[in-house]
């Protein structure tokens, strides 16, 4: 016997009512009348939490009860798949597992999905977009981080000449351009922007510490550090191909370490967007 209330859906009147469960059928007692229905005729609402259940009869009228347990029993054998979502929601273990799964999916998306999508987008963009992004990127950097290089015109022309000689041998369809800058914030550094723009930052060594204050910008550094290792390998190969001693590369990196060391400012590996320089170069003791 399930206790509840009966609504005729013609008015807002509510009357006490009982529902008696038989084998595959129910008997409704409401408004002094007894009516029989088979289970197939009834529309029984899904269980959610502990909210009252509603049983709707063919004429649209409703029986409402807070006795969830009795309704579940009534349904039990007749509809074994009824309320599978509630069975997930009822269980704390499943809730905790679902939470773990949500966190895992988010992590996997950030770790693998996003780079994958970024790769697709990059491959789909036409070279003109590349140029626009590169140009805008440089403008933004010029505005926020860079000053004009302090090198004299003669030295700059020399470097430009060297750069074009070097890139002339790379026949990969890019139009490479060298931009020389100075920066208090970034210190000595080199950046590659889309559309073959290479920015070499000469600057004094004083402000690698300032980079630490820009750490939030560098949160997505894992991938860029892997790229850097790849770039190192490429540089060494290029030097070998052009019969220039590989030691030159190590020397430059080691000079940067020394400079930074004097200011006592080598960054911890994860904050630096560059692999720890000692992992990259074989420094002689003198530097």
């Amino acid at each position, binding site marked *: 016997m399930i206790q509840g209330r009966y609504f005729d859906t013609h008015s807002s009147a509510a009357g006490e009512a009982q529902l008696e469960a038989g084998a595959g059928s129910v008997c409704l007692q409401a408004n002094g009348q007894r009516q029989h229905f088979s289970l197939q005729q009834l529309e029984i609402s899904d269980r959610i939490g502990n909210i009252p259940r509603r049983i709707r009869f063919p004429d649209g009228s409703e029986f409402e009860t807070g006795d969830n347990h009795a309704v579940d029993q009534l349904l039990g054998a007749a509809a074994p798949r009824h309320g599978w979502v509630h069975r*997930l929601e009822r269980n704390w273990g499943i809730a905790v597992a679902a*939470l773990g799964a949500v966190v895992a999916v988010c992590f996997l998306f950030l770790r693998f999905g996003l780079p994958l999508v970024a790769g697709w987008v990059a491959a789909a963009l036409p070279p003109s977009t590349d140029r626009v992004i590169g140009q805008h990127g440089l403008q933004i950097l010029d505005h926020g981080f860079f000053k004009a290089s302090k090198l004299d015109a003669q030295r700059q022309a020399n470097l430009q000449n060297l750069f074009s000689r070097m890139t002339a041998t790379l026949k990969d369809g890019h139009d490479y351009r060298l931009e020389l800058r100075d920066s208090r914030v970034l210190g000595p550094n080199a950046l590659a922007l889309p559309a073959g723009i290479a920015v070499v930052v000469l600057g004094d060594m004083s402000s690698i510490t300032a980079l630490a204050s820009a750490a939030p910008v560098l949160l997505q550094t894992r991938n860029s550090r892997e790229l850097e290792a790849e770039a190192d390998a490429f540089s060494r190969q290029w030097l070998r191909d052009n019969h220039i001693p590989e030691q030159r590369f190590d020397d430059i990196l080691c000079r940067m370490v020394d400079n930074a060391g004097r200011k006592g400012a080598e960054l911890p590996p994860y904050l630096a967007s560059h692999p720890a320089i000692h992992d990259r170069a074989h420094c002689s003791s003198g530097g």
Partner: protein
Amino acid sequence: MEEQVATARELPLEFRATGAEYFRIWIVNLLLTIVTVGIYSAWAKVRRLRYFYGSTLLDGTSFEYHGKPIPILKGRLIAVGAYLVFVLGGRISPVVSLLLLPAVLLGVPWIIMMARLFQTRMSSWRGLRFNFHGDYKGALGAYIGWTLLAMVTLLILWPLALWKQNSYLLGNGAFGTERFGFHATRGQFYKFCLVGLALLLAAGCVAAILMGILFSAHPELRQLNPNAPQIEAAMATLRIVGTFYLFGGPLILLAVAWFQARLMDVSIGGLTLGPHRLFARLRTWPLFWIYLSNLLAMFCTLGLFYPWAKVRLLRYRLSNIGIIANGNLDQFVADSHIQAGAVGEGMHDVFDIDFGF
């Protein structure tokens, strides 16, 4: 009169949802939505609303939400399509956006009307559906006409626009065949809008004074080197703005809590349904405390507190709303049921227009 007072019963809403129960519904919804790439979100919405409606009781009977997932899903797809047309159209040419703007201005009132219609018709109590009789002209006037007027008059007419909008949403409602009456006055709206504005200004002033005291004690906080590159200037600005919010944030939140409590008290308290009267008795300090502690708890738990936060806020709001029943609540009669399309409702969700409650 004496007789009526004797038979009047005060029936507040009772809210039985618990954070622990809703957490499990929420997390299962979230996971299934992610796994189905968003398709389950329509089912999730139905489950969430059925849970909250079913947990809200008036005079011992719960409310019921009748929305069905498939129409909601269709509505969402149409809404996403419309949104994409607008965004991509703007990409192709600004002229397209310009042409679409009047369409949006004329479309928004329609969406609001449809959403409200769907929302009310999909709700029932004691087997009787709610209904909405607002028409398009009314929505256009209240949401576009009066909003433009408020802007042109530098917000002097804004309380009146707010009154119009509440009057449209609430005053056009019906339970069965019985229409709600909206009796809140324009004067009441002007009064709490003005006091709200004064409170907001006062909150801003107090925050500025507190910040001034802090900065004179710690001059290094406001250091701003004119020769510094932009990134450093930006950091310094961020520090100053952050400090302002640290002091001003809670004060502004307090003003918002006051405003929200008064808005609900006046607009819901001004409603009648047949011989019955509705009431709302929200108080500022408990509401403020719920807002503030919810924000802090969500911040500390990376958003995991959300289900509890939602239930706490709903419980406070709902249990301070109710009806003063003059006689019994049995005499309402059903209106002939009309099917409501779910497009309006879906649109409302995607564009996230938040109105009233």
